[in-house]
């Protein structure tokens, strides 16, 4: 066992390891050594560390705006259009500048501009000259019906002129009431030319409306840009910017750790598509119907659903219009059974057998789902409790500092809770992964890894519950440190094994997945 512990400890970065009697762990590290893919552990570890350096930046709202401006500038040096038009074009192409260049230089520009709902800036706007001149330089605004000096009216490139007050009212209604930002079109009926941001920002003076507009524009910039994602925490206004799209954890400045691909809490080892299927399964009532299939039968005549909760197998349907007599076991008519149910002569008939098989299947499927679901829920629940643990640990740490320990010496407790939470989270998602996994040699190894991590995690949790006294403090510290290091390493081994399986395409699933 000592050598096994060595193997585990050697993966630790800290040099403060020890091999104190941890025999009760019953860890089966030998299994991992002997697994076919075991040899690549070190490689996997190295690669994993590189992956941990997945480059990303957390941006504040101001930085997002700056990033947007930079993108526009960059494109502008190439296409040489007014920035407001570039922004609308970029937005049209979901901020994919390559696509924009391609269409701009290869395609029909006229078509491009009309698809993006803008007027080609190279076209002279003079053709749509002001027609509604009244006498002495006055012009009528068709919205408010006032005659105003021409200078009070303005239009987009499409030439539909309205007075400034009406523009402000129109834009304010669209922004504040309809929550529109990018898609506000000209106020004229049937005109689809989009209002550019500069027009909005010069016309609108009320700060509240301006702010909302900026927010809407930034939001659409982030939402349609594939290299950006908002932090999913509701009150957090940061976004993350990556250099390439990948299944990677992002740690926001607010502390939330989420998956870049789907924005859910980081859910390694299970991937987004399976997690989504799982969530849907948990939410919808597919399991309700499974329960019905597993625990009830249908009346062979009127098909009403019956749950048998006792009594003999001679069934009389309670449906007043049916009242069929039948046998619960074979679902055939009761008559031939006579008084001796045990000689149920239809027992081996194919039809009845098929019905029973189907029921068995539903029953097994339900049991299987409940098995994984219970464990998933259990870890989720425990994870919630561990968050409470932080508070009590803090107290403990203060208490220990009064027992002649320095601040730095008691930090191991917080670290232990961190590890505990990480392990709980990983374990929770391993059950989702396992639910969809077909049984293979690899899945057996996976389940062994899962079991080891689970038992180690439970032990760590137990240690943290123990009372710390002056007598046992040194011992406890040693045990807790050993245990969390062990947990960390088990977690790493499990995740690496799953990752290896992904890389080598070893996992087989019980459901079909769309190949990405």
């Amino acid at each position, binding site marked *: 066992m000592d050598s096994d512990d060595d193997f585990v400890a050697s993966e630790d970065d800290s040099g403060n390891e020890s091999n104190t009697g941890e025999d009760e762990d019953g860890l089966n590290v030998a299994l991992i050594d002997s697994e076919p893919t075991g040899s690549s552990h070190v490689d996997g570890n190295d690669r994993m560390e590189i992956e941990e350096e997945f480059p990303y930046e957390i941006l504040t709202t101001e930085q997002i705006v700056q990033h947007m401006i930079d993108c526009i500038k960059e494109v502008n040096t190439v296409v040489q259009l007014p920035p407001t038009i570039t922004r609308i074009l970029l937005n049209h192409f979901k901020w994919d500048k390559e696509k924009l260049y391609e269409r701009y230089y290869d395609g029909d520009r006229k078509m491009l501009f009309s698809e993006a709902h803008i007027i080609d800036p190279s076209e002279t706007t003079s053709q749509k000259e002001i027609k509604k001149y009244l006498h002495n330089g006055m012009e009528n605004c*068709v*919205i*408010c*019906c*006032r005659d105003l000096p021409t200078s009070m009216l303005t239009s987009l490139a499409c030439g*539909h002129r*309205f007075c400034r*007050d*009406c523009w402000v*009212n*129109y834009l*304010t*209604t669209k922004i504040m*009431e309809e929550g529109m930002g990018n898609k506000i079109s000209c*106020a*004229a*009926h*049937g*005109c689809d030319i989009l209002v550019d941001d500069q027009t909005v920002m010069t016309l609108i003076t009320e700060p509240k409306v301006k702010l909302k507009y900026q927010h809407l524009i930034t939001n659409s910039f982030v939402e349609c840009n594939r290299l950006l994602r908002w932090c999913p925490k509701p009150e957090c206004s940061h976004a993350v910017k990556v250099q390439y799209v990948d299944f990677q954890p992002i740690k926001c400045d607010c502390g939330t750790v989420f998956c870049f691909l789907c924005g859910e809490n980081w859910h390694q080892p299970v991937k987004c598509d399976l997690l989504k299927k799982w969530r849907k399964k948990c939410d919808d009532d597919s399991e309700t119907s499974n329960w019905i299939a597993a625990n009830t039968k249908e009346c062979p005549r009127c098909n009403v659903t019956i749950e048998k909760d006792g009594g003999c197998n001679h069934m009389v349907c309670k449906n007043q219009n049916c009242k069929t007599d039948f046998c619960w076991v074979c679902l055939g008519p009761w008559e031939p059974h006579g008084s001796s149910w045990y000689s149920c002569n239809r027992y081996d008939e194919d039809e009845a057998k098929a019905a029973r098989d189907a029921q068995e299947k539903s029953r097994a499927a339900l049991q299987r789902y409940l098995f994984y679901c219970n464990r998933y829920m259990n870890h989720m629940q425990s994870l919630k409790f561990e968050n409470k643990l932080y508070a009590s640990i803090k107290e403990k740490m203060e208490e220990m500092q009064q027992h002649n320990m320095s601040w730095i010496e008691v930090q191991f407790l917080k670290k232990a809770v961190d590890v505990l939470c990480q392990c709980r989270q990983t374990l929770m998602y391993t059950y989702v992964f396992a639910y969809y996994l077909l049984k293979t040699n690899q899945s057996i190894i996976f389940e062994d890894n899962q079991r080891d991590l689970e038992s180690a995690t439970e032990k760590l949790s137990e240690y943290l519950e123990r009372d710390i006294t002056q007598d046992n403090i040194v011992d406890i510290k040693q045990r807790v440190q050993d245990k969390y290091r062990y947990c960390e390493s088990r977690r790493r081994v499990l995740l690496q094994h799953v990752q290896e399986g992904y890389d080598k395409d070893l996992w087989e699933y019980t459901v079909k997945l769309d190949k990405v």
Partner: protein
Amino acid sequence: MASMQKRLQKELIAIQKEPPPGVSVNPANIGPNLTQWIVDMEGASGTLYEGEHFQLSFKFSPKYPFDSPEVTFIGSNIPIHPHVYSNGHICLSILSEDWSPALSVISVCLSIISMLSSCKEKKRPPDNSLYVKTCSKNPKKTKWWYHDDNV
């Protein structure tokens, strides 16, 4: 508010001076502050609605014309049309999403006349009974789903 009054005043004068064919406004049917109008409409000759008389109710919010008016058929004769529900609600895009402040009572009336005139078969919308049972009193609260653009 003041601009809304002024605009409605102008619109009222315009519709009385040059009403679209078949449309008339009785000054007695104009509510206080011009916020509620009842417009009379005759079915155009040569169409399925020839000789029929309809009444349209217009309600204007203080945000008019930036907010669309609430327009419904009222009275004893609700036209039987695939886009008109038996409670008088009208499924017409310019009354909700496609509303523009540059539109007016006259342009709404013209759209409705043209909607009626192009009808080839008098029938209620397919979901009429369910809609009438479940809808809000205000048609503007309905998330319209436009069946087709042809009629």
